[in-house]
C-alpha cells in the first residue's frame, strides 16, 4: 500500500535524475526508487538514511514474519531478535550501496542465506 503511494509520488515529481555515476543498488529498489537518492537519503545525500527511511515502504512486523525461525531458534529472527526485539535500525545490518555483515556476526556464526554480504 505504502509502496504504491511512494511510487505515485515519484512519478508525479518526475524522477530527479542522478549524475551518471553508477552505484550499487538492489534490483527491486531500482524498479521502485530509481535514481531519486532523496527518497531514502532523507537526511541529505551525504548522510545515512534516517532510521525511519526504509519504513516508508517496509513494515517491520511483516519482515519479522518473513524471517521467522522455528520455535527453537525463534530469537535468531533478525527482525525480532533476542537482544533488541524489533528495534534494531535497518542500517545496522543492511547497506544498499555496500554489502554489510549482520550485527550478530560480531558474536555468532549464524547463517542468513539470503542476506547480501
Amino acid at each position, binding site marked *: 500500500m505504502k509502496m504504491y503511494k511512494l511510487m505515485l509520488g515519484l512519478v508525479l515529481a518526475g524522477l530527479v535524475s542522478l549524475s551518471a555515476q553508477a552505484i550499487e543498488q538492489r534490483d527491486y529498489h531500482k524498479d521502485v526508487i530509481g535514481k531519486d537518492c532523496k527518497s531514502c537519503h532523507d537526511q541529505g545525500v551525504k548522510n545515512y538514511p534516517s532510521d525511519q527511511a526504509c519504513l516508508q515502504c517496509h513494515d517491520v512486523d511483516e519482515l519479522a514474519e518473513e524471517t521467522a525461525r522455528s520455535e527453537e531458534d525463534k530469537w535468531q529472527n533478525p527482525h525480532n531478535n533476542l537482544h533488541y526485539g524489533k528495534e534494531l535500525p535497518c542500517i545496522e545490518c543492511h547497506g544498499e550501496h555496500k554489502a554489510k555483515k549482520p550485527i550478530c556476526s*560480531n558474536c555468532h556464526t549464524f547463517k542468513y542465506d539470503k542476506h547480501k554480504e
Partner: protein
Amino acid sequence: MSNKDLLGRRNFIKGMGAAAGVAMAAPALAVSESANGVKWDKEVEVLIIGSGFAGLAAAIEATRKGAKDVHIFEKMSYFGGNSAINGGLFAAPDTPMQKQEGVKDSVDTMVADQLAAGRGIADEALLRHVAEHAVEALQMTLDAGSEYHPYLQQLGGHSVARTYQTTVSCGAGITQPLLQECRKLGVHTHNRAKFDGFILDEKGGVVGVKMREGYYFDKPESGELVRIKARRGVIMATGGFAQNINMRMAQDPTLTAEVGCTNAPGATGEGMFEMFRLGAVPVHLAHIQSGPWASPDEGGFGYVSNYSIYNFPHSIAIDRLTGKRFMNEIADRKTRADAELNCRDAQGNALPPILITSYEDSKQHPNTKKVLKYNVGWKFDSIDALAKHFEVPLAPLKKQIAEYNEYVKTQSDPQFGKNMTEAKGKFIQAPFTVVRLWPKVHYCQGGVQINTKAEVKDSLTGKPISGLYAAGEVCGGIHGVSRLGSCSIPECMVMGMTAARIMMQA
C-alpha cells in the same frame, strides 16, 4: 591526539571489525563548560546517560520515587549496551530459590566470597550495600516480566549456588522487560544521543550536559550539539571501556587489538574520561578482567561462554599438550584465565585448552544444542575419537579422567582443590561434548570512585561532586582484582536504584 596519529591507528586496526570505530571515537572537543550564560535547548528532571542495567534500573526507581520527567540518553542506535548481550547470570544471597534448594547463604557469605577474589583491594562497604539490596533488584526484574531457569548455578569463586539465570540465558531477558517497563512508566528513551561533556555551575556542580543528537557511532563528529539542563542531577551509567583499545593497552599493553573482546562496540569509556576531567577519583583502571569461558571459535561471548559457565563445575579442562588438567575449573576468573594463557605448544604458540563434559550433564543447558548446531562445540562417542580430533596424548588423558572420576566419588580434588559439591555423581563418561577455551577481554574493574550513595567523589576536595551520580561498570574499585561472575548485574542495578533514591531525596 593529532589527526595523523588517528589515521595511523586507524590503518593499524583496519579489518578489526567493530573495533575499527573505536580509536576514531575519541571526541576532540568534549570538555565541560560553565553554565554561565548558557542557552539551554531543553530541560529535564532526571537525566540518565546509558541504557544498560544501571541506567534502566535508575530510571524505573526514579519514577517510582515520584520523578515525572525522566530521560535516558544512549549514544548507540540500539539500547542496552553490554547488558543486552550479557549472560543473564544474576547472583543474590538469601533468595527464594536458595530456600527451595536448601542452600544456606547470607549477605556476609556473598561479601566474603567477593572479598577473597578481590585479593584485598575490593571495597567492602560497596559490596555489602549491593548484597543487601540484591534481592530488591531481582524483584524489580521479576516485576517487569523477567523469567529465570528453575535452578541455581554455582559460578567460579562462589562458595555456594546463588546464581539465577534468565530462561533466554542472556541479559536481554532483563534489559528488554526493563526497557518496556521504562516506557510504560513514561520514561523518555533517546537513542543516537551521545553525551559530550558536563555543564557546571559556579561552584563546579553538575547542572546539565552537552549532548550530540542524531549521532552515528561510526561518524564521531556527527549529530547536533544541544545543551540540556538537569533539574535534579545527572546519573552516569555509561559502562566500561574494554572496547577502547588505546585505553586498555595504556593499562595493560598485552591487551592488543588482536585479543578478543566480549563487549558491545559502545564500551569505549568517554563518559568515564569526562568524569576524570571533572575531578573524579580513578580507581583500579589496570584491573581488566578476561573471561576464561570464552571460545576462539566464535566472536565475543557467543554461545560457548554460557555453555562453559554452566558446565565448569562438572567438567575437566585439559591442556592439549599434556592431556592433563591444569586448573581448578571453578577458581575465580583471573586464576583460570592466567592458567589458560599458559597452554601453549612446543613453539610457544597459543594452544587453546579443551573443556570435556559428559553429554548427559551438558545437555541440561539449552546452549549445548546451539553450540553443537553452530559448530563451535563437538560431540564424541569415545575418548579415543576425542583425543584424535584435538591431538591430545591418549594415555595421559585416559589416566586423568580415571583420576578425576575418583575425585567425583570422594568429593575431594587433591589435584587442584576444586569444590566438588556440584560435581556430585557427575562422572566424566561417554558420550562427551567438548569446546575450546581462550580468554577474551571482558570487564573493567576500574572506573570512577563512588560511595554507597552512588555519589562521585572529587579527588581534590574529597567531597561528592554536586549533581553527579554514577552507577554500573563505569565505577571502579568495588570488586578489586577479580569480579566474581554474576555479580555485575546486582551491582549495576542496585547502584542505579541507589543513585535514583539519593537523587530524589536530595
